[in-house]
């Protein structure tokens, strides 16, 4: 019997597979398709203090083996998420990782303090890497000192372990990872989307109303894998890896690169059943590769 369970700060995962934040809403749509209790965890859509209506449309554009999005953190706000979405999710036997976003340190602190008290929120994912909001977001994730200070501030108020979501839009991601480690982070989630754009060849105008958007999907997997590999070798923090994961072998790759668990993002839009399908295939694939557990695979590439 292949053991898929993974233990991480705050999280006892049945298996290492979870939907990534922003690609799964608050679970309601996917709950109509399958039992969410099958998932290792759920990373819910980013929550801000106040409700946000997001960016103008078009908000998405397809690119070669990927897509751009600039949703703009649309969400019902802290009160709406805690009062309605999280309560609804309590019916499932699955730990929730709450994605926290804001434009100021005070925003992050406020959301972290309150949302971490929800009974089913077992960890926070601090979104210092959203490329699609005009203030905050990515600006917290591109300077090591700012990232460290924000980590400390959030750690001071959170009732659950804190994972920091890193941006790939930096020259040295390891320096940011080390900074949040110093700031007391319990783990890292990586990577967020890569900033990109697409033009309409007829008019020359950007396709996305926000002009730029975050690139995701299979196109970014090599970048994500390289970054997970580098960060896992140079910090001691556990990593939830993501970026272009679309099938079981992609998940194997991220574990091998040094991630302890794997999040699936854009692939949920293409195949809404992708998470349970990867979970179902994982034991057989591990067995074929000669591993008795998912845990044995973590960081395999470092040992070669």
């Amino acid at each position, binding site marked *: 019997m292949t053991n898929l369970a993974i233990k991480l700060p705050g999280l006892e995962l049945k298996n290492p597979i979870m939907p990534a934040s*922003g*690609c*799964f*809403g608050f679970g*309601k*749509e*996917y709950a*109509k*398709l399958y039992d969410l209790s099958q998932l290792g965890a759920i990373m819910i*859509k980013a929550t801000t203090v106040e*409700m946000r*209506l*997001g960016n103008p*449309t*078009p*908000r*998405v*554009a*397809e690119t*070669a*083996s*990927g*897509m751009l*999005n600039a*949703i703009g953190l*649309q969400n019902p706000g802290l009160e709406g998420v805690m009062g309605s979405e999280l309560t609804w999710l309590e019916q499932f036997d699955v730990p929730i990782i709450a994605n926290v976003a804001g434009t100021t340190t005070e925003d992050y602190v406020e959301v972290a303090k309150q949302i971490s008290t929800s009974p089913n929120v077992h960890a926070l994912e601090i979104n210092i890497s959203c490329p699609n909001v005009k203030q905050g977001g990515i600006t917290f994730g591109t300077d090591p000192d700012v990232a460290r200070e924000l980590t400390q501030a959030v750690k001071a108020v959170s009732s659950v372990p804190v994972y920091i979501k890193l941006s790939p839009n930096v020259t040295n991601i390891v320096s940011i990872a080390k900074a949040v480690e110093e700031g007391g982070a319990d783990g890292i989630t990586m990577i967020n989307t890569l900033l990109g754009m697409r033009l309409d060849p007829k008019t020359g105008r950007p396709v996305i109303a926000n002009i730029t958007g975050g690139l995701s*999907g*299979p*196109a970014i997997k090599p970048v994500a894998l390289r970054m997970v590999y580098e960060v896992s070798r140079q910090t001691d923090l556990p990593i939830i890896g993501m970026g272009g994961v*679309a099938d079981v072998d992609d998940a194997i790759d991220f574990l091998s690169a040094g991630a302890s668990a794997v999040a699936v993002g*854009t692939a*949920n*839009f*293409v*195949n*809404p*059943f992708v998470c349970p399908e990867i979970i179902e295939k994982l034991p057989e694939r591990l067995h074929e590769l000669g591993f008795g557990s998912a845990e044995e695979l973590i960081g395999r590439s470092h040992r070669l």
Partner: protein
Amino acid sequence: MIRQQHMTVVSQQEIAHRIFELTVEGDLVNDMMAPGQFVHIRVADSYEPLLRRPISVASYDKEKRQFTMIYRAEGRGTNLLAEKRPGDGLDVLGPLGNGFPVEEAAKKAYLIGGGIGVPPLYELSKALNGRGIETVHILGFESKSAVFYEAKFKELGDTHIATVDGSHGTEGFVTHILNELPKDFDAYFSCGPTAMLEAVQWAYPEKKGFLSYEQRMGCGIGACFACVCRTTKSETDYIKVCSDGPVFRAGVVIS
């Protein structure tokens, strides 16, 4: 219930310039609830192109377990879809969205369509006629070469065609025809470009109307927040075209 199913292509033919009629077979048809719903098609098994394509259902037949889509081949995705041949498999997610409320029409309905918004009105017209409701079809196209299903609509009721270049029917837009027609109907249903939907709403402020909207989509099931529109209800109210619509009562969506 929403399903993801590998369906089988029964037939595919070009019925107007770059307009294709594609019929597929599979159990997913049993779950279709109303005219105006759509499906989300994966045109390739590879990651290129990556996303699904939302395509409206033009007609369905539960006994035969078949449904028909009509689409314009104009981009990478739909050009690949146009290459499918009978016997090929097709990855279909659906049925998605809420269709037209046929029960809202009492005696006579206007069905107003533009271009590739015309197809869902065909199943709608069949459903309305099945309930004994008189249907009048007002359909707009770019030019004569883009016109399709004129004879099929004529079998179901009065049918008026407008073309932008005047090469067939009335020259201009559907609104030019609407101006000439009596307002003796109790409900209208419309699908087409946003500008057309706006014009139709303005033409009949006092009538009960239902409009099917189009918006660039990601997931098609309401999770990704790509296809949102604001509403007239309040500053902060919004709808998702894919899962709350695509059909909305006239006067609700700010487009």
